[in-house]
């Protein structure tokens, strides 16, 4: 094993460039460790995001050798090629600086897809008894662990090619709410995900499913939305 790796890190905004740094190689080193080393010892002007550094927050997502992933959960030995690694900001999002992106559109699309719980009861009503094994709840549980890291959004070709497309994360969240027995907002939600840029713009490439660090399957959730909206259409509930 070599003592040093050459790391190419994107610097600047969209019109920036890759800059190479030499970083000492250590056992069990993650890509986040490498970025942190560069910022602390080589170039304090490097901007990047992280928080938990243990794979539960999703803040450290970046593009490593062309793939969007969590850098705190990516061991260098898994991605290094001929002693080199390339690190860029997450794709499909505007670059603020270096490795930090502007995630506003990601969260705006979350709202557009009505990925927000609409209560049907108040605190004065009895707590709704949801059976964990009920078919609907099983569907919700498969998709509920999304922590909005943006990896699926960065991996998605339809997001890249269609600026209106709401994206896998927003639609996945909408699906969890469609199946939530307590939610009262499905009329508006189905209309939102059936609009232009909604679930029907998904071409089932499954890049989201392949890259999700939480092993969520947005393609399946979106397929569920497709079936639900078509059903609503046939019943005259949707135009």
């Amino acid at each position, binding site marked *: 094993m070599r003592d040093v790796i050459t790391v190419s890190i994107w610097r600047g905004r969209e019109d920036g460039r890759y800059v190479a740094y030499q970083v000492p190689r250590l056992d069990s080193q993650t890509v986040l460790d490498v970025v942190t080393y560069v910022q602390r010892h080589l170039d304090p002007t490097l901007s990047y995001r992280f928080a938990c550094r243990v794979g539960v927050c999703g803040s450290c997502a970046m593009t490593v050798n062309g793939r969007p992933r969590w850098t705190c959960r990516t061991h260098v030995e898994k991605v290094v090629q001929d002693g080199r690694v390339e690190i860029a900001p997450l794709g499909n999002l505007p*670059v603020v600086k270096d490795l930090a992106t502007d995630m506003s559109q990601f969260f705006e699309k979350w709202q557009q897809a009505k990925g927000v719980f609409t209560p049907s009861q108040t605190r004065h009503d009895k707590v709704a008894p949801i059976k964990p094994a009920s078919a609907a709840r099983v569907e919700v549980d498969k998709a509920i662990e999304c922590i909005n890291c943006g990896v699926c959004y960065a991996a998605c070709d339809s997001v890249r090619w269609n600026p209106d497309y709401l994206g896998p994360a927003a639609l996945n969240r909408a699906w969890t709410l469609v199946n939530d027995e307590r939610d009262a907002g499905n009329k508006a939600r189905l209309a939102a995900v059936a609009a232009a840029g909604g679930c029907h713009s998904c071409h089932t490439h*499954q890049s989201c499913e392949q890259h999700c660090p939480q092993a969520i399957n947005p393609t399946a959730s979106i397929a569920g939305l497709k079936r639900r909206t078509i059903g609503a259409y046939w019943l005259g509930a949707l135009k």
Partner: protein
Amino acid sequence: MSGLDQRLRSAGHRRELLWVAAMVHRVSGLLLACFLPIHFLVLGLALERTASLDAFLKWTDLPAVKVAEAGLVFLLTVHLLGGIRVLLIENLTWRPGQKGLASAVLGAAAVMALIFFLRAW
């Protein structure tokens, strides 16, 4: 396109089998869409006389044309099977092992084209 986008274009995720399957499906559809008008025009030659169609069909004896026809059979089969795969994913319960199905689609289409080629030779 920005410089960063261009660099990200050589993206590692494009080596995923399921993405390749999706692109094969898309490109095969495009090529078939280009072929269809030509196909209809050739068949329309039968409107004039049988002889016109025959004159055109003489070209199909050429080995190069037979290879092209096998290519078309491959395109149609791969687009058909890939399309069935998408219909299954979108309408049935999710099953693991989608990658195997994708490989099977490509393989079956290649076999089909080969069968055609051998029979037409």
